[in-house]
């Protein structure tokens, strides 16, 4: 999915981050610490930020991308406020986890591995979570939902949407 990094909305963070790059310009081997700071600040590594790092530290953009893609901790897709993991282990799969995944995808309008444009939800299809007797299992953040039915999906999403509104 295309995801545009909102430069306007992140203006302040970007200014702070540019300051951080400046402070670390002279530090030997600064690239990884700077990438780590970027990920903490923005939650992921947008292309715009990686380009900013390249010019700020005077290293080729290809090197910034090369290093960032090497390490498993860096992510290039933003994660939503709530992360929905749908277990696609064998037991869950047989009990209709695929249907449930599709229901989540339809309602939220995104595919597995993506994040909603309003940054509220991400969907992850994961391997076995080890709760086979409760299949099919859906995990939202740290809450485990057992024996989920297709008709439950709407309510689960609504629960977190409400919480989001309250927080905002």
């Amino acid at each position, binding site marked *: 999915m295309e995801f545009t990094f909102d430069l306007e909305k992140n203006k302040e963070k970007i200014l702070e981050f540019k300051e951080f790059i400046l402070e670390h310009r002279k530090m*030997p*081997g*600064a*690239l*990884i*610490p700077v*990438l*780590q700071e970027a990920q903490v600040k923005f939650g992921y590594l947008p292309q715009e930020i990686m380009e900013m790092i390249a010019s700020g530290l005077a*290293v080729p953009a290809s090197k910034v991308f*090369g*290093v960032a893609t*090497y*390490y*498993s*901790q*860096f992510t290039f897709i933003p994660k939503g406020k709530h992360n929905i993991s749908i277990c696609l282990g*064998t*037991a*869950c799969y*047989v*009990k209709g986890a695929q249907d449930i995944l599709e229901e989540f995808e339809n309602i939220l309008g995104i595919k597995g591995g993506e994040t909603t444009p309003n940054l509220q939800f991400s969907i992850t299809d994961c391997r076995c979570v080890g709760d*086979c*007797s409760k*299949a099919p299992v859906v995990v939202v953040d740290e809450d485990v939902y057992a024996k989920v039915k297709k008709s439950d999906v709407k309510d689960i999403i609504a629960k977190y949407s409400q919480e989001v509104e309250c927080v905002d």
Partner: protein
Amino acid sequence: MINREELHRIRESHKPELEAKLLANGTAEMRDGRLVLAGDYYKKQTRVALKNSGLIDPKNIDDYIAFDGYRALEQVLSEKTQKDVIDLMTEANLRGRGGAGFPTGRKWNEAYGIQANQKYFLCNADEGDPGAYMDRNILENDPHAVIEGMAIGAYAVGASQGYIYVRAEYPVAVKMLRIAIEQAREYGLLGKNILGSGFDFDLDLRLGSGAFVCGEGTALMESIQGNRGMPRMKPPRTSHKGLWQKPTILNNVETLACVPIIFQKGAEWFRSIGTEKSPGTKVFALVGKVENAGLVEVPMGMPLNEIVNDIGGGVTNGKALKAVQTGGPSGGCIPLDLMDTPVDFESLAKIGSIVGSGGMVVMDEDTCMVDISRFFLEFTVDESCGKCTPCRLGTRRMMELLDKITEGKGTLDDLDDLEQLAKDIQKSSLCALGQTAPNPVLSTLKYFRSEYEDHILNHKCSAGVCRNLTAYEIQEDTCKSCGICKKNCPVNAITGDKKAEIPFVIDQEACIKCGVCYQDCPFDAITK
């Protein structure tokens, strides 16, 4: 900034206070005139690297100082030349605890002998072995021991800058290190002119970003330099050309934690513990199917069964011990009949395993050895950096062969191919990750070959782990028709009815072999 006199004052005034507190709250007891952690679990242990763990507050430098902390550094700086320090380390014969077992004194001597305008001293805290966490424990509970060890080593080789490369997955360790470095700087134990001796040494932290291979020396240095953490060709050794091509010493956390106490008590004392060729102690992470899982520190050379049975309390649930895996993905599986092997560098190497970083995974009869070697191989396939072909492609091919076998599609030729590939990868890989990746496969092939053959010839996995080769069955004579299995089966593969007196059976076609029925049956009526 404090001076030597003030260091003494802190020690003298704080020690009785701390001792009284620990004895009063029952945390510790006196043994041979020294304070140690209370409890039976610790009685058979000899704690050297872990001597302060659990006793001191890692956030309080005065606690560390009270138990002779920074005494060794102070003496080294005021009384010993660089050569003296190296000689004492060589005499003590402390061997690297990160896995390779290289003599620390010899390593330091290499870097000492080279002229350079800048040298570096690094600490390897990138502990990534699945099932090992001794370094994390030391960093979280006794960070100053590592800092003091580094300062002594840096003085010996003539390094003025150090880095601790620590996993980002260890946030508490990172926090404790940050606090400890800050406090050491405040006291003047790091920075310029340490304790008025004219020696300068400062430290920085670098966080890993989730690449197992960065625990390898050259890859770690590439990563600190801001590159992809890929290993370089050796030679040149890093003690000649390491970080930014300058002479660099890299020691593991546990190794460094042993350094201060060696200087306090002398080389002879250290050599009196352990074996002749592997002196001192080693911390093991005793995990898996063992009663008292946890960290144990014992003299090198203690027989394996003493560690597993006497300290670990044997296998859980009264099951039979099958094997002990040591050394993580680079190590091997030790079978039951070799359980009296002394645990030291030489003895384990002789039987095809390694001490490694100290992971010790106990396995019982429910563990499938083919599945275990596949598990470790999957890990190395994921973590191979991809720079050299034998490791990148060879380990993947090995895993495919193991997949075939666990699915019941293997042939005896596959075993030969597996063995040949394993030997080729060992010989031709660039770094230790590839060179040791075949070890779990080779050791299981050596000691548990019949299990592989059972998978191939009889399509049977006796441990009941490999799903394609396992069938769950309900034994009619022990079944009480309680219906728990039927209720919990995720795919409704179990039929039966108590009232209608229809016996419970599993439909083998529909069964997905998740094992839920086997685990849940209160009467052990289900077999596999």
